[in-house]
């Protein structure tokens, strides 16, 4: 992947949520950490054009997130903090198919892709279930399946282990480790990103530190206890 921020920042109601920064992200597994309200989620949302930069520009594999948001979103999948909000249609099978149908694929191709992704995550038994019947871990996998079925090259996950019990956390971690796609994970779960290729630390809307997990996590612990 090749994500570039060129003096890109985001301002909401006159306040800088993300200060302008220039950075290039090419590693396959990147973690994003920081205190609540530090700008992590806004930064991540800028990558797939959910938040457009108030200044500068953001490109993903050479495509500008403002000029061609549709093309960027076909490359960058985003999984929200609360997967309930990710699921648009009540029944899992329908929800997974929705993203494919909007691309006007033939019915047979949609069905094959849905079966394929259900098989990939071993959740075929959940196909006919409703979102509110799923456990936290199942819901996270369902959200992941609904995004990955459209074959994005990059996946952003916003606190994927938030509010999960140990069993479901392990399930999500194992799934994340098995992904072939490039991943960016926003997390307060430091163990989850401890062996990632690179970690970014945000603090008060600013990119404070950027480097290897051990160094950045150590710096985060200092910031958190100030």
């Amino acid at each position: 992947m090749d994500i570039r921020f060129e003096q890109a920042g985001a301002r909401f109601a006159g306040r800088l949520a993300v200060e302008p920064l220039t950075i290039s992200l090419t590693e396959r597994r990147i973690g994003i950490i920081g205190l609540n309200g530090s700008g992590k989620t806004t930064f991540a949302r800028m990558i797939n054009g959910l938040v457009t930069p108030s200044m500068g520009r953001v490109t993903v594999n050479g495509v500008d997130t403002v000029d061609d948001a549709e093309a960027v979103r076909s490359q960058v999948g985003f999984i929200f903090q609360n997967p309930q909000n990710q699921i648009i249609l009540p029944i899992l099978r329908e929800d997974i198919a929705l993203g494919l149908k909007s691309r006007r694929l033939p019915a047979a191709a949609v069905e094959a892709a849905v079966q394929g992704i259900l098989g990939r995550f071993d959740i075929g038994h959940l196909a006919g279930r409703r979102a509110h019947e799923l456990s936290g871990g199942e819901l996270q996998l369902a959200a992941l399946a609904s995004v990955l079925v459209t074959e994005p090259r990059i996946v952003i996950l916003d606190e994927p282990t938030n509010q999960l019990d140990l069993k479901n956390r392990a399930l999500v971690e194992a799934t994340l480790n098995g992904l072939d796609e490039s991943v960016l994970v926003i997390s307060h779960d430091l163990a989850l990103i401890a062996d990632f290729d690179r970690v970014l630390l945000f603090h008060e809307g600013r990119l404070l530190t950027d480097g290897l997990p051990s160094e950045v996590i150590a710096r985060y612990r200092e910031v958190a206890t100030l």
Partner: protein
Amino acid sequence: MNSLYVEGDSFLHRLPPGLKLLLLLAVSLALFLTRSPLFLGGAAAAGVLLYASLGIGWRQSWIRLRPILLTIAIVALATLLLESVEDGMVALLRLTTLMLVAAAVTATTPVGAFIDAVTRAALPLEKLGLVRASDIGLAVGLVIRFVPEVISRYQALRTAHQARGLKVRPTTMIVPLIIQTLKSADEIAAAIDARGIRGQKRQRKS
């Protein structure tokens, strides 16, 4: 997230969604083309039988239909008082039949199938360059999707009131219910954008 769809294998479940929507349209038109008490009474009885054939159960049916039934009762009562007893009865029978048939169609059609059917129906408009057919289908699907969600939010708010020993009043329920529903709609809109389900062009902020 809950759903109005009820799994089953009834005759109505097996009918194609497009045909069900056409039948619903035809029934709606027929109901408003006549004032015959015999026809409207028969239609209402048929509506009850149709809905009962789905096997949803009286209690669940009451929970689902109660808000609309109350609205119909208010409309019929107002018509009766402002117009005549006959007009009140006509309004009651028409709206009740319509509610039962529409509820039966909704209970036997998954939201995804609704979206597909409406999208197909809107394709001629897309060819004329007036709309994006998939947007129309998605909009209709989202309306159906949000009905049970609003109801469950109302129930959660009512429970929160009871847990804090507060009396459930419309004045203390309506504002949080609207705010929560709008927030949820915002989040769903973001999910639709994030998943690229509805393509859109954005302008660079100045």
